[in-house]
């Protein structure tokens, strides 16, 4: 059995082990990798910078706990920028499992850093079922959809929400999502009410949204952990996404190497009449 035959019959668990090592090593020995900021991330950052101070911004937490590695750093970075600009932020989620609690934890953590008060500077509306009805209904009345905030306090008792009736009172929507909900924010809210929308999405769903940026239906886009790292750099708050870029680069190199080895193994295996690498 020559080298390529051994490669062909390699147990896939060895590859899992290699990937695990490639993740763990940079954590123990961190290395900085440069992050090039894309025009889409810059566009999103500049759109928010151009908002007048104290503008009302809706930040959505449309993601499950399973994707927080990609999306949560975006929420943190967005809140740093919004609170620094003294924007009034209200949050909501269309995700039942974890959405409301993630929104509470993230907003309260960043708000504390900037001395922001709940009900005056920010409000968490929480979750409501049936996102289509929620997105459409908020165009008429936010209070009709969310009679209370996430803690059960009636919106009428929250000073910040007194003058926020519907999308007309919202200057910008920053949607952070791990699913197709951004498409509905575009087609239902941006198209019908004209509210500008920027989004931070998972890498899996990022490619399809570039055409919406190009058509002007979206004002900026962050794609995956790389997008989060770009935004952390733009708001000068490097955190977990920036740290992850070093690991990301190393694993990508490993995957490229494995693809090359796999193809070479397949080529030699084919020449010898076998099916090639099986991992």
């Amino acid at each position, binding site marked *: 059995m020559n080298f390529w035959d051994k490669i062909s019959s390699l147990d896939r668990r060895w590859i899992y082990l290699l990937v695990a090592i490639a993740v763990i090593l940079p954590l123990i020995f961190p290395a900085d990798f440069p992050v090039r900021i894309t025009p889409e991330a810059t566009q999103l950052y500049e759109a928010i910078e151009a908002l007048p101070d104290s503008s009302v911004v809706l930040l959505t937490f449309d993601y499950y706990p399973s994707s927080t590695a990609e999306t949560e750093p975006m929420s943190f970075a967005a809140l740093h920028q919004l609170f620094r600009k003294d924007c009034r932020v209200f949050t909501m989620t269309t995700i039942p499992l974890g959405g409301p609690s993630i929104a509470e934890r993230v907003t309260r953590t960043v708000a504390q850093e900037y001395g922001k008060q709940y009900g005056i500077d920010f409000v968490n509306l929480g*979750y409501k079922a049936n996102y289509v009805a929620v997105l459409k209904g908020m165009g008429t009345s936010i209070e009709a959809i969310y009679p209370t905030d996430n803690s059960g306090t009636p919106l009428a008792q929250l000073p910040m929400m007194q003058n926020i009736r519907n999308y007309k009172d919202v200057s910008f929507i920053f949607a952070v999502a791990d699913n197709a909900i951004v498409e509905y924010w575009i087609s239902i809210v941006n*198209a019908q009410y004209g509210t500008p929308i920027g989004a931070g999405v998972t890498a899996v769903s990022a490619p399809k949204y570039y*055409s919406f940026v190009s058509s*002007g239906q979206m004002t900026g886009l962050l794609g995956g952990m790389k997008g989060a790292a770009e935004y952390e750099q733009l708001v000068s708050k490097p955190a977990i996404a920036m740290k992850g870029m070093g690991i*990301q680069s190393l694993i990508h190199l490993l995957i490229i190497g494995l693809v090359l080895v796999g193809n070479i193994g397949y080529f030699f295996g084919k020449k010898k009449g076998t099916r090639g690498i099986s991992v």
Partner: protein
Amino acid sequence: MTGIEILQIWIAAFFTLAIFSFLYRDNAVYKFAEHIFAGLSAGYYVGLIWKSVIIQQLWEPMTRADNPKWYLFIPGIIGALMFARLIPRISWVSRLALAFVMGNTAGVFIISQLHGLILPQMQDTMLPLLNGGFAGSLLAFITVIGVISTLVYFYFSKEHTGALGVTARVGVWFIMISFGAHFGYTVMGRVSLLIGRVYFLYNDWIGSLSHIF
């Protein structure tokens, strides 16, 4: 870090490692974690819907003393009809509710998809070919070629031979490049999720040891 926080971290770490153990082979610990997750999710979801929809948006507005919205009993009854599926003899009744949902959804989506997705995207594709210098014109040209050839690939009313076949093959190349971009992003996304979990184990779980000892 409080004792409760440390306990939470250790429970989360246990379930993370339990799920990762599947990478070695299917095992009882993985199954246990999987079932706990499914059960917890279902229970949490039912509780959340009960509170945020049934109580907050149906029962309370209907029964409040000041300006009660009694007419909400109509969507309430329509919703309840869904449970008719559980009784085989009258399961057909649930179709009334389903028909309402389908009709409503179709009505909302036809307008929003047409007005919000199809027309703006088509408009953005109809570019002047000579615009924005050499680079702009080149991109516009590639976009137009890509759109036409991809559409031709999905045109099945005529056999893909001759000029139609060549155009369709160009379309396949555009589709493959698109798949490649999606695949690259997918790999990056999955790696990011792994990084997130390993970062949690290294930073929070192993880090919590310093608070214990």
